[in-house]
């Protein structure tokens, strides 16, 4: 072991030496080259020195106007060695004052001396000219063409910015190369399976650069003012009524949406799992469907129906009812329709897991159905209900697309931070606001994860009996089913409206049938659609593979910092998209990593955001697979990469596929983060939908929404088909 460490250190020292040698020869060569080219410039310029007072002044002026690479000053009479200047320098004022101040400096004396002997001299160190500008100084003789007399000295100064930038780049480059080398050498020499080491190093690097670093940058910027530490951003925000009302707006919206969604979700779950209502399949399907509807689609149809020119608004106006859908009530309605599936899925699982035998026992003890519900079923479901509420609350707070179109006068944080960044160009405020949004989101998320989820009693009871205990009287059942079908019909109406919107000439004004919108939308969105699909298609396999690798390492390997890595990988799941988007533009628009405006920043953002879900799926699926299957492959001679390719990936295929389709769909329907990251070159179709809606081109927006809905449903459909084919395999694995 010690011998190994010594070997490692020796190799590393060798790398450092070689690296330093390359570094110093490259930078020396660069310095020499710039020095030589500057000297040449000095030579040529000095050769053009004209004689005569007027001419010199004229010449100096011309030089100053012509070039910005150097400055010149002219010293008309060379001082005697050790004596002050006898004349005032002419030319560039800052340089002139530097010359007259430092005329006695040995470097200047040397310079004048050289000029007297018709030589060019470069000062051995840089000088500060004017305001904090490091400049290289050259001294050249001013020679009268006719008499060949030295009439004075020309002092040239060159900016050293280029060199400094070059050196900075070299430093970064060599530092990165050194770290990379150290990691690679360490892995190759120390570890028994370097592939795993590289994978781990890669994951750590990825999360540090693309999760931790942007968040840190956002946090840092919110504490900066003019490049210095300051609390002023936060003071402004916390004292401003406008920003605080946005915080309250977000919280209010979150509470209302969470409450309504939980009620609707519970209703759906209860009817499906505790009653003999008809059409349960339909109820279940419609209870999940909205969760995958693309952003803006529900809002769009609400506007089409209830907006200022909406179909239903008109009718209501006729009977004298006037209202505006823009604002809190409209948003709560849209969000509830879009988010109650989260509550339904959570509560459906919870109610199914509660053993019906409890309820049967209660009924047998001649408790009424209502008593059974209120004393048994409901209390048992309370942790699940809290959990559902918190989940919807987080989702509502982070929601960006719906408020964007429907907020009206209501201020919410996600929207405010977007306006600060794109409208006001106040990045610091935007960052601070999105961090402010993170506080309630993260609290609710953590509460759900670690407090409520741990308290659920449902798992304690044995196997679910599979039978259904009817907990409602026929009348109650009919009422509940009635409410549910009303909601379902409303949902179908919303989707139908979008579809109808495609074929109407000008919604709200002219309802004649027309295909114009479709042709126009398709011609105007081809590029954006192509971009969107391309970006999603690139991000999807990357996210899928990385997710499975990360899951494999987390489940099967012991390593230091596992908890940290897990946390970093999972963090983006709890982050509002606006925060992620803002922190990305903050972090990647300056050195050392500049990505703003590229496709890479969007792809990376997709990958980072969708990884957590893929990883969780991978972990759950790997936990079901006997580790000795992988060990058997290793034992037969497969290295880690081969095991991953030939054994792990085929075995976790269902999880892998669903992670793929999830990433694809989420990338196709992204808004909140991607709206900050798009550029003229790389556009996103959801942003286009938003632009169309903003310009009241609802027909075009409807067409694009329909296209997105078709793509999303298609992707999920294909995935389900493929996974079903694999289901006999999954059964065998466990």
């Amino acid at each position: 072991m010690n011998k190994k460490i010594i070997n490692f250190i020796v190799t590393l020292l060798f790398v450092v030496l070689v690296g330093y040698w390359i570094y110093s020869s490259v930078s020396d060569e660069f310095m020499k080259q710039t020095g030589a080219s500057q000297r040449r410039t000095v030579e040529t310029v000095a050769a053009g020195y004209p004689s005569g007072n007027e001419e010199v002044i004229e010449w100096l002026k011309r030089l100053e106007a012509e070039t910005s690479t150097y400055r010149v000053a002219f010293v008309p009479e060379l001082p005697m060695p050790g004596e002050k200047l006898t004349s005032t320098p002419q030319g560039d004022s800052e340089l002139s004052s530097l010359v007259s101040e430092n005329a006695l400096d040995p470097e200047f004396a040397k310079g004048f001396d050289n000029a007297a002997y018709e030589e060019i001299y470069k000062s051995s160190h840089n000088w500060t000219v004017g305001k904090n500008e490091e400049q290289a100084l050259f001294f050249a003789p001013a020679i009268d063409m006719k008499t060949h007399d030295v009439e004075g000295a020309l002092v040239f100064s060159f900016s050293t910015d280029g060199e400094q930038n070059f050196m900075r780049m070299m430093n970064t480059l060599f530092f990165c190369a050194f770290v990379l080398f150290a990691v690679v050498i360490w892995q190759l020499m120390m570890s028994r399976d370097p592939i795993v080491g590289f994978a781990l190093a890669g994951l750590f690097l990825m999360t540090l650069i693309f999760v931790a670093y942007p968040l840190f940058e956002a946090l840092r910027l919110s504490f900066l003012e003019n490049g210095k530490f300051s609390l002023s951003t936060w003071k402004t925000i916390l004292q401003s009524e406008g920003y605080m009302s946005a915080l309250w707006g977000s919280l209010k919206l979150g509470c209302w949406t969470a409450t309504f969604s939980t009620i609707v979700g519970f209703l759906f779950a209860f009817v499906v799992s505790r009653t003999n209502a008809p059409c349960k399949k339909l109820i279940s399907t419609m209870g999940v469907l909205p969760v995958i509807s693309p952003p803006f689609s529900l809002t769009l149809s609400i506007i089409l129906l209830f907006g200022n020119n909406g179909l239903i608004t008109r009718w209501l106006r006729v009977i004298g009812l006037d209202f505006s859908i823009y604002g809190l009530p409209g948003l709560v309605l849209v969000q509830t329709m879009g988010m109650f599936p989260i509550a339904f899925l959570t509560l459906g699982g919870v109610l199914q897991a509660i053993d019906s035998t409890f309820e049967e026992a209660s009924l047998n003890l001649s408790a009424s159905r209502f008593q059974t519900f209120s004393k048994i079923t409901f209390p048992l479901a309370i942790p699940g209900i809290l959990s559902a509420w918190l989940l919807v609350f987080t989702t509502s707070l982070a929601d960006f697309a719906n408020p964007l179109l429907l907020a009206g006068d209501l201020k919410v944080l996600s929207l405010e931070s977007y306006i600060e960044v794109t409208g006001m160009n106040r990045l610091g405020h935007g960052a601070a606001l999105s961090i402010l949004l993170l506080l309630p989101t993260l609290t609710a998320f953590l509460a759900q994860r670690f407090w409520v989820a741990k308290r659920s009693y449902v798992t304690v009871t044995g196997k679910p009996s599979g039978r259904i205990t009817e907990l409602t009287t026929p009348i109650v059942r009919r009422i509940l089913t009635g409410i549910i079908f009303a909601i379902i019909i409303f949902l179908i109406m919303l989707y139908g409206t979008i579809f109808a919107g495609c074929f109407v000439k000008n919604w709200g004004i002219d309802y004649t049938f027309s295909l114009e919108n479709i042709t126009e939308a398709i011609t105007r969105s081809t590029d954006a659609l192509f971009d969107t699909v391309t970006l999603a298609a690139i991000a999807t396999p990357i996210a899928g593979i990385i997710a499975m690798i990360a899951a494999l390492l987390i489940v099967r390997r012991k390593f230091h910092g596992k908890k940290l890595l897990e946390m970093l990988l999972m963090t983006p799941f709890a982050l509002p998209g606006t925060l992620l988007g803002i922190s990305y533009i903050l972090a990647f628009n300056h050195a050392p990593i500049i990505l703003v405006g590229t496709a890479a920043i969007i792809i990376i953002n997709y990958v980072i955001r969708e990884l957590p879900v893929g990883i969780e799926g991978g972990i759950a699926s790997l936990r079901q697979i006997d580790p000795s299957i992988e060990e058997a492959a290793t034992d037969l001679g497969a290295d880690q990469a081969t095991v991953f390719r030939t054994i792990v990936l085929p075995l976790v295929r269902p999880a892998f596929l669903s992670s793929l389709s999830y990433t694809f769909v989420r990338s196709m329907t992204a808004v909140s983060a991607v709206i900050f990251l798009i550029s003229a070159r790389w556009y996103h179709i959801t942003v286009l939908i938003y632009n169309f809606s903003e310009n009241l081109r609802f027909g075009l927006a409807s067409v694009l929404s329909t296209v997105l809905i078709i793509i999303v449903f298609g992707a999920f459909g294909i995935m389900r088909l493929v996974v079903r084919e694999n289901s006999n395999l999954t059964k065998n694995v466990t």
Partner: protein
Amino acid sequence: MASKSVTFDNIKKIFRDPQSGQDVAAVAGVSFRLEPGELVTLLGPSGCGKSTILRMLSGFEQPTSGKIMIGDNDVTNTPPNKRDTAMVFQSYGLFPHMNVAENVGYGLKLRKIPQNEIDTKVQKFLEMVGLGQMGKRPPSRLSGGQQQRVALARSLIVEPSVLLLDEPLSNLDALLREQMRVEIRRLQKSLGITAMYVTHDRVEAMSLSDRIIVMKLGHIIQIGTPSDIYRDPVDTFVAGFVGKVAFFPCEVKGLSPLRDGRNPSRLATKRWSWPDLSRFLSVNRERVLKTELLRRISISATA
């Protein structure tokens, strides 16, 4: 294939318990040597470190200290895929997404052998384990015993120097177990392969092994042939583990020399302390009665 010896030199394996953070010595410094072509069984109660020894030999665990040799090569730091060992797992570890023939041929495929050669060799090995007709089936449609044979064929086909078997028969019913035991022994002998076998079934150990290593709490208590261990266990633990025993707690009052000359010096010169004597007496009933030692030693029962 050339069979190789295996040497464990003062091997220790310490696990850190993730909850309490305490160190647990799963293997507390063991040394032994397997001769080429020998089948040695690791025998001991649950948790004594048998699997850990096997996993260190196959490379899945890295010893905390000590040296492992296969033949003349130090393999202590060699990763499992580069070691010349093949393991048969208790749960078989068959690849569920491949059929039987693909399972058996997996190791050959990794070695970049042409497909037609793989096919012939796979067929040969499947016939050797009596599954000649089953190549196209998925492993899930085989019985437990058949799956075990596939696992065995898959390990043997890569011609390892050392075959490792971790309780390979524990998932089978009693009858099948006996059958497979014979089969494994037959294959191991005919291929002349060095084998290490883990079990806590003493009948299995007795009937299968060239030698047995008895372990307890990470230590080796005794190494010997089955009959050595059966007849001359070093202590009550071994005695209790390998045979049906009755223990007679007793106290030594005095000694008289043996008439038939067996172990006279040991009995005569030693002052018998309680553990020694109990070790000597608490062997299985047949032996105690046969050697009639009880009559030569003046003892009185204390209980």
